[in-house]
């Protein structure tokens, strides 16, 4: 069998295999839906679990800037994740830069929070509760992105997975700033920030294993 006949056979089989497909929504539309889901979650959290001083906090420019930076980074990462599922759907390189600048800005603000060394068991239990809550708040939006990516055609599964987790867990970080009453830097870094990093790593691994399966 020659190379030409192999190619002809492959083309014939692909034509035979052709079935109508449901077109994927654009990355922009998917991002908008995802943001809508997050907005619903935020409204529910504000109605049921907002910290007592949330009004005063929202009057502080530094806090608002941190929150806006995290939310912006989260939405941009979601947009990048959805775009990673569509071949050739290039996003302006500046978007990535803006997302990382937003994360850096928020991290800088967190690093200026008061630092109190509290190594008591109660502080540890409180922190562990926050870490679990980060996972709970991020789980559905994270899953939505992964399933949406799985339905798409990502070539770089690790990157797509990492971006998806980054988006979901950064949004959870922002939500937790409105619900968790602790403003201690160590608490924020260890129990709110580390889950974001851990989730990005885990999601990248899941992405390597699960997301490129559309090709087989």
């Amino acid at each position, binding site marked *: 069998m020659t190379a030409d006949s192999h190619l002809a056979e*492959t*083309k014939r089989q692909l034509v035979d295999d052709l*079935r109508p497909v449901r*077109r994927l929504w654009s990355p922009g539309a998917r991002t908008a839906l995802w943001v809508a889901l997050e907005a619903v979650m935020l409204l529910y959290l504000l109605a049921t679990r907002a910290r007592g001083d949330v009004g005063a906090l929202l009057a502080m420019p530094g806090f608002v800037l941190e929150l806006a930076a995290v939310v912006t980074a989260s939405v941009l990462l979601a947009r990048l994740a959805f775009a990673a599922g*569509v*071949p*050739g759907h290039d996003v302006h390189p500046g978007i990535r830069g803006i997302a990382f600048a937003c994360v850096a800005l928020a991290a800088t603000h967190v690093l200026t929070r008061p630092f109190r060394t509290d190594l008591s068991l109660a502080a540890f239990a409180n922190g562990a509760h926050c870490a679990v809550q980060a996972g709970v708040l991020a789980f559905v939006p994270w899953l939505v992105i992964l399933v949406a990516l799985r339905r798409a*055609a990502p*070539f770089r599964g690790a990157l797509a997975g990492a971006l998806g987790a980054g988006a979901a867990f950064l949004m959870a970080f922002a939500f937790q700033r409105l619900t968790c009453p602790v403003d201690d830097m160590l608490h924020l870094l260890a129990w709110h920030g580390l889950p974001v990093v851990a989730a990005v790593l885990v999601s990248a691994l899941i992405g390597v294993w699960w997301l490129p399966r559309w090709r*087989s």
Partner: protein
Amino acid sequence: MRDARTKEAAERSRQRSVLMARAQSGDQDAYRVLLDDVAQALRGFLRRRVADTSEVEDVLQDVLMAMHRARHTFDPMRPLEPWLFAIARNVTIDHARRRASRGRWELQVDELPDQAGSIEEPAAPRLDEALAKLPASQREAFEMLKLEGLTVEAAAERAGTTAGALKVRAHRAYKALRAMLGGGE
């Protein structure tokens, strides 16, 4: 002259998008025309990017299969080429990675040994050894169709894929096995 060529390219691009949109709706005739058209364009693209020219046709088939599986992600409001060549670029990168990874396991020697490890004539590899060298998806397709005797449909269902895709895997497995076991074309 240049304007005419630009217009011609734009028109061809528009036609490809239309053909792909029809293929997304299940139009096999449009898909056949599109595959013939893009295979030509892709071959030129791959010849410039695949180091071993003997592998261009294999990579081309991989690109067409990837394009087939990703066809639902194409937006007909956009030109086809960025989507298509992004697929081709990524498949080429994967191919190069696999090739580099294979190369790491091959031992290069400066001098041939004086005496072979065995004085017996090297035997042709056995089927199970050859099967073990196949990619898992191709091995599975071959085993289900030829060793277990399943129908294409049953095998495709078990593998969680379509009948067409399974046939392509099996076809590639036969080709690789023939090469490994020394069979003719």
